[in-house]
Structures are given as structure tokens and as C-alpha cells.
């Protein structure tokens, strides 16, 4: 009964309800406008909301996350520009549909199926998380350490162009996270005798720099791209269509949840895998894939929204983020004094059910905003970049300053922004950096705990590791990634998905 009360908390309070609605609304537009990303929006929002009550801040950010994942599909359909990485697969069939004059129908259908996917994700989260967290209590420090490394390596190998670049980015993040006084012995690390560095580098400044500034700087390359307008007809999808595609939507939703729940894989991979799945199971599509098959639109859209619920499972139960957005989210939870991990569900069950309720609410708002306001939408998305980008810079700077009212944070943000710009330019992924910063202390502390319990003996650590099935699995996965060069796998996946459609 308590759980239900917490679940309904954001539904009954007008302020929380309003904030979730606002967040979802903002998220849809942030996700839809190419050049603005959910990661960027959430990292800027952290800095503005950190003084708020945690419930208010969470409502807003959950809304942005949920809306943002959906919003990317809009521009993918209308402009063939995926507003977010998770909408890349959506563009493959969504844009051909729009070219046939079916943009409205495509948007309507993708909205409904996104919401279906979202609900599947939330239900799985509500059922699985308590079990996972009970299981997680039995985890040893070495398991946490390996989970941390695993998450960074997966993000590094999947998001970047080469594993080496991904590992570099992840290790850099880990190192940034160690700057300051060591939490266990209070020894100085990388402080260069500067007292200001004792507290470390503010992770929010790193996030805003890497995702706000560097992304906006990159947008300056594409200032003069012409926008193609599409005519939008009816938007409420046909009931027969929904009924017909529901089984596929549910299947791909489950793919989405599972992929989302794995550390290191998020909505983008989920959407690509779902697209691949749809292609395999649809024997006789009415329209070939890549030319406007509705199956090819529904599958990735259900999967990427389902991945949101999935991504919350490791985030809330283990404190391990699945991708850059969840890494930023964990940063937000830490700032609000919450400790995501196996004890969160035991010590603060209200937080868990509150989040589940919030996600559900945000999902409903996606449905409402998704099927309305399309005229306003096309106006806002056409907002010229020449105005938009200066505003992003302004918000980034103000955001970085607002965390501690310190100019130093602006310097850090700027430094990481410029560095991130060059990293992106030369094919280094920036997601692992953020994951590294967030996971740094967890990995560091658990490594030291693990080695201390073995009295400093590495051989004992390995022997005990092999006695525990979980540790063995984790260890072998890490070794597997390192030595089978997971880029081959991504190449395979990309080839499989893109080649026939190209």
C-alpha cells in the first residue's frame, strides 16, 4: 500500500504533475531539435535544479528523459535528421513514409508505439528491480569494480569508432574522477598543490562542457542546412493499425528493455536491434523495409522507449549507468544526496516507487503531447540555429556557474568543451568520459576493498573470483570484450541493419 502511495505521489500533487508535464514537453522538443540532446539538457538542468527539493528536480528530469527519447523520432520522420541517436533507426523508414505524404500517420503511430514501449519498460522495471536489488546485495566489492569497468568498456566500444579510443575516453573519465583528496586516506591526487582542486573537478562542469559546449561548437559546422518541410495530415493513428502492429511492438519492447538494462547499451543499440528483429520476423511486408515499412518505424520506436525503463534497472539497483544519459542522471541523484545502489530500494523504497510513478506519468504525457500541438512543433523546430546556438552557450555558462557560484567551474566547462570538441572531431567518443567520471569513485573504492580483503594478494583475488559464478561471468565478459574486439560486432550489427536499406 505504501508503494502505491509513493507511486501516486506525483499524480496527486499539482506541482509535481505540472513539472512532469513541463519536463516531458521540454524533452520532446529537446529531443526533436537536432543539435540539442537529452544528455545536454539533463546536465544543464542538474545545475539549475540542485537547490530544489529532490522530488521536484526528479519530476522535471524524468520527464525530459522520457520525452527526449521519443522526441528524436519526430525530426527523424519529418526531416530525415534523427534528433537523438536512438532515433537513427526510425529515420530509415520514417522519412520515406513522410515523403509519401504520410508524415502525420507516421508520427501518430510512432507516438502510440513509443508509449506502448514505455509502459513495457516501466512494468519490467517495477517487477525486476526489487529482485535485482536483492541479488545485488550479495555482490562483492570485486563484482562492483568489474561492473563499473564493464559499463565503461561497453559504452566505449559501442559508441566510438574503435575500442582503443573508447578505452582512452573511459580511462580519462576515471582519472578526472580521482582528482582531489582521496576519500579513504585524504591523500592529494592530481591537485598540483592547488587547494581549489581538493574537492575535485565538478562532474557537472565536465558534463556541460562535453555535452553542451562541445556539441554546440560542432553544430557551428552545419549552420546553413536547408530545412525541408513536410505536409502533416491526420495524426491520430488508425485503430486497425495499432491492433495489427501490437504484437511486433510488444516483442521489440522486450528487446528494448533487455538491451536497455545491460550496462553500456542504451536506446540507440536497442532501436537498431529491434529494427533488425522486425526485418527478420516480417515475412511479407506490404512495403519493403527502407521504403516506408510501418514495421520498420514501430520496432525501433517501441524499443527505444522501452529501453528507458530498462536503463533504470541497473541505475537504481546497482548504481551503474547504462549510457551517458543515465550517467548524468546518477550524477543528479548523487547531488541530491541519494545513493543509487542495492541499498536504495531497502533504505528509500519511496524513491523507487516515486520514480516508477513518475515514469508512468511522463509516458502518459508523451501520448498527450505527441498527438497534439504539431503546428507549434514545426514552428519551434524551425527555430534558426543562429539564435539557438548562442542560447545554448549562454545556458551552459550560466549552468556551470550556478552549481557553486564559482567562475572556476566555467573554466573547467570551457576547457572540457574545447577538448571535447577535438575529441569528437577526431572520432573519440565523449560518453565514456562521463561514465568514467561517475563510476570513478565506485570502481576505485571497490578495487581497494577487494584487494584489502585479500590482504593485498592478487592471486587470492583471482582464486576467490573463480569460486563465485557471478564474478567469473563478469570477468570473462570483460576479457571477451577486450580480446574479441567488440568493434567487429558493432560493424556486423551496423552492416546487417544498414546494408540492405542503403
Amino acid at each position, binding site marked *: 500500500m505504501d508503494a502505491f502511495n509513493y507511486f501516486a505521489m506525483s499524480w496527486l500533487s499539482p506541482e509535481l504533475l505540472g513539472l512532469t508535464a513541463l519536463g516531458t514537453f521540454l524533452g520532446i522538443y529537446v529531443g526533436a531539435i537536432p543539435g540539442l540532446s537529452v544528455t545536454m539538457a539533463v546536465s544543464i538542468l542538474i545545475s539549475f535544479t540542485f*537547490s530544489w527539493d529532490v522530488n521536484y528536480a526528479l519530476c522535471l528530469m524524468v520527464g525530459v528523459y522520457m520525452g527526449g527519447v521519443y522526441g528524436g523520432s519526430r525530426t527523424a520522420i519529418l526531416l530525415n535528421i534523427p534528433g537523438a541517436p536512438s532515433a537513427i533507426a526510425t529515420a530509415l523508414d520514417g522519412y520515406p513514409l513522410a515523403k509519401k505524404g504520410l508524415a502525420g500517420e507516421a508520427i501518430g503511430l510512432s507516438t502510440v508505439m513509443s508509449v506502448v514501449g514505455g509502459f513495457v519498460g516501466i512494468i519490467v522495471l517495477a517487477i525486476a528491480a526489487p529482485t535485482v536489488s536483492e541479488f545485488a546485495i550479495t555482490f562483492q566489492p570485486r563484482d562492483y569494480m568489474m561492473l563499473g569497468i564493464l559499463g565503461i568498456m561497453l559504452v566505449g566500444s559501442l559508441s566510438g569508432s574503435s575500442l582503443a579510443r573508447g*578505452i582512452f575516453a573511459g580511462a580519462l573519465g576515471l*582519472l578526472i574522477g580521482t582528482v582531489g583528496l582521496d576519500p579513504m586516506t585524504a591523500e592529494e591526487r592530481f591537485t598540483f598543490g592547488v587547494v581549489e582542486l581538493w574537492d575535485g573537478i565538478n562532474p557537472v562542469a565536465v558534463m556541460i562542457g562535453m555535452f553542451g559546449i562541445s556539441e554546440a561548437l560542432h553544430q557551428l559546422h552545419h549552420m546553413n542546412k536547408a530545412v525541408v518541410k513536410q505536409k502533416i495530415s491526420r495524426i491520430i493513428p488508425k485503430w486497425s493499425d495499432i491492433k495489427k502492429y501490437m504484437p511486433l511492438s510488444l516483442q521489440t519492447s522486450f528487446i528494448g528493455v533487455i538491451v536497455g538494462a545491460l550496462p553500456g547499451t542504451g536506446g540507440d543499440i536497442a532501436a537498431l536491434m529491434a529494427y533488425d528483429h522486425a526485418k527478420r520476423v516480417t515475412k511479407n511486408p506490404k512495403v519493403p523495409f527502407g521504403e516506408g515499412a510501418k514495421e520498420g518505424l514501430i520496432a525501433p520506436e517501441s524499443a527505444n522507449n522501452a529501453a528507458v525503463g530498462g536503463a533504470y534497472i541497473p541505475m537504481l539497483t546497482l548504481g551503474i549507468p547504462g549510457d551517458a544519459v543515465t550517467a548524468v542522471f546518477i550524477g543528479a541523484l548523487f547531488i541530491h544526496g541519494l545513493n543509487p545502489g542495492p541499498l536504495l530500494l531497502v533504505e528509500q523504497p519511496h524513491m523507487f516507487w516515486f520514480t516508477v510513478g513518475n515514469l508512468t506519468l511522463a509516458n502518459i504525457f508523451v501520448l498527450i503531447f505527441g498527438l497534439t500541438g504539431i503546428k507549434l512543433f514545426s514552428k519551434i523546430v524551425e527555430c534558426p540555429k*543562429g539564435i539557438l546556438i548562442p542560447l545554448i552557450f549562454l545556458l551552459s555558462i550560466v549552468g556551470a*556557474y550556478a552549481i557553486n557560484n564559482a*567562475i572556476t567551474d566555467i573554466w573547467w566547462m570551457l576547457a572540457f568543451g574545447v577538448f571535447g570538441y577535438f575529441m569528437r572531431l577526431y572520432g573519440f567518443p565523449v560518453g565514456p568520459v562521463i561514465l568514467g567520471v561517475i563510476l570513478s569513485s565506485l570502481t576505485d573504492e571497490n578495487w581497494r576493498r577487494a584487494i584489502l580483503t585479500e590482504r593485498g594478494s592478487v592471486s587470492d583475488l583471482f582464486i576467490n573470483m573463480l569460486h563465485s559464478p557471478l564474478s567469473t561471468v563478469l570477468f570473462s565478459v570483460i576479457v571477451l570484450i577486450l580480446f574479441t574486439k567488440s568493434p567487429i560486432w558493432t560493424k556486423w550489427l551496423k552492416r546487417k541493419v544498414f546494408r540492405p536499406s542503403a
Partner: protein
Amino acid sequence: MSSQSPSLTTRKPGERIFCFLLVLGSVYLFWQAYKISGFSSLSSPGAFPLAASAAMVLASCITFLNTLKAPAAEDVRFVYHCFPPVVAFIMALILIYSVVLESLGFVLTSFVFLFISIQFLYRRSPLTTLAITLLSLIVVYIIFRLVFQVVLPEGIMPEREILSSITSLWR
């Protein structure tokens, strides 16, 4: 670990230098990590930074060696495709913004910043730019300063007096 996606079989101008700088930076950080507690024990405060920076050295060396093998991309010029003047200009603008922010205050600095950058990027008549700048600044100010209650540097503008005189008008 030499397998790379097709887009990276060529290298962009400056990529080699950037990767080389990363190697240098990683080695420097490795040395700094060594200075924390040396190779004293596996659970020392320096052990984890050492491992992380060692991974950086290794990964950056591999990347650098790969760029040595890769042929240069054709028709890509550094000043045009990689680091166009507009990016440098905006970077400089943000730098100046953060230098003068505390002394001049949020409102003035942001006004100038928005005006220059919108004029530069949007290229309309100064009057249009002025209108857009004013409007967006007012919206940002209301949302963040008044609704979100974010503390922003006041600088030379007597903001609080202005605000209180405005609120007193309502009473």
C-alpha cells in the same frame, strides 16, 4: 585493436598531432599518478590512478600508431573542415564572457554576448538582432533568476534595487 570503422581509415588533418599530444598528456598523467604513492601497494591511493593512466597511455599509443598508418583524407582542410574560424571566434567569445562575467554582471555580459553571437551567426539587421537578444535575455532572466532562483553575478548593475523598485510598484 586495429579494426576501425570505414570512416576512420583516413585521417583528418591535425589528427596525428592531436593523438600525439594525447600520448604526451597520458605519459605526463602517468608520471603524476606514480608520484601519488609510487608502486608501494595495490591498495594505495595511487594504484587506481596508475592503472587508469596506464590504460590511457596504452590506448593513446595504439590510436597514434593507427593514425600513422592511415592515409590523409582528401579534400579536407584543417581551417575549413576541422577548425573553422567561426568555431575559434565563438570559443574566444565564451572565453571573454567568462573573464568579464563577475565584474560586469550577468545581464550586461550576456546581452553583449548574445548580441554579437546572434548577429554573427544569424546575420540579420542589427535591429532584428537587438529585438531577439532582448527578448531571449528577458525570458532567460525570468526563468532562471526569478523562477529557478539561480544566483547570478550582479556586477555593476544594481539589479536588486531595480527588482525591488519594480516589486514596490505592485504594492
